[in-house]
């Protein structure tokens, strides 16, 4: 039942999730780790932030926006 598992994924919460406020506090640091091309390094250093970005649409959008801005202005 595909729909149920989609819903279950949506409802699932990650106890490591740091929330929006803390995520935004360190987003610039995280983005540079991602940009430095160390696969998985950013998520390993900041698992709570990675969990949050996977779950929070708006913060995930800000992450992609900041990453795009940094890459476009290197």
């Amino acid at each position, binding site marked *: 039942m595909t729909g149920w598992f989609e819903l279950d994924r949506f409802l*699932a919460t990650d106890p490591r999730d740091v929330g929006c406020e803390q995520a935004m506090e360190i987003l610039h640091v995280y983005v540079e780790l991602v940009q430095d091309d160390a696969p998985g390094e950013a998520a390993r250093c900041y698992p709570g932030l990675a969990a949050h970005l996977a779950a929070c649409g708006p913060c995930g959008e800000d992450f992609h926006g*900041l990453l795009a801005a940094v890459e476009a202005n290197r």
Partner: protein
Amino acid sequence: MPPDDLAAESTGPVNDGTHSKADGAVDVGPSVDAESAEWLRTLGDTGLGREKALAQLHELLLRIARGELRRRSGQHPITGPELDDIAHQAAGDALLAITAKLDRFRGESRFTTWAYKFVILEVSAKLGRHFWQRPTVALEAEDWDRLPDRFGMGPAEQTQWHDLVTCLRRAVDEELTERQRRVFVAIVLNGVPLDALVVQLGSNRNAIYKTMFDARRKLRAALAAKGYPTLSDDVASGVPTDVDAGRRS
């Protein structure tokens, strides 16, 4: 987990290389890169040097704001002069925030990366506010018919999802607090973007997310108690959930 117990995460080892001085200038630590140090020096300066740095930073922020609004063009209907006006507002407000918080830059990243974050957040906030200028949804209406499509439930599964939606609806009514129910209905059923809901409820992104976080946890437990199988937490937590149904509508 209560709403205030979202996990805390250290910002990691920080370069404490900058300190505010009594005259407003910023001491630059030894490990800040040269370009960042120059930004801090000129922005902490007085007179023409500072004015020039502010103008240069504003120009940079405006370029970032315009780029970000272009990048998000599929998520908003704004075009032309109105779009550029939002870019200018975002750049101006970000510049104010950056100069007010200059002493909080700790050299953990390049200065520009830190500064760009402010303008990206301003773009998000301004798009959230703009949503209510031409609202396409009613905040309180409960559009339960939207749910199957939202979660990819096809017509072949109609009987199953009818039972599931009935069960979920009961859980929303019986398990959630009034505020959790309101936030869940607005975001999941009515497709209100989270940042727009922030504006409507006079709240902030973190508070709305935490409300939604607790609602999700309660609803999942309620459905599991009714016999709906759950993915393992490892699997479920590794998959993007995107708590902002409105972004995809």
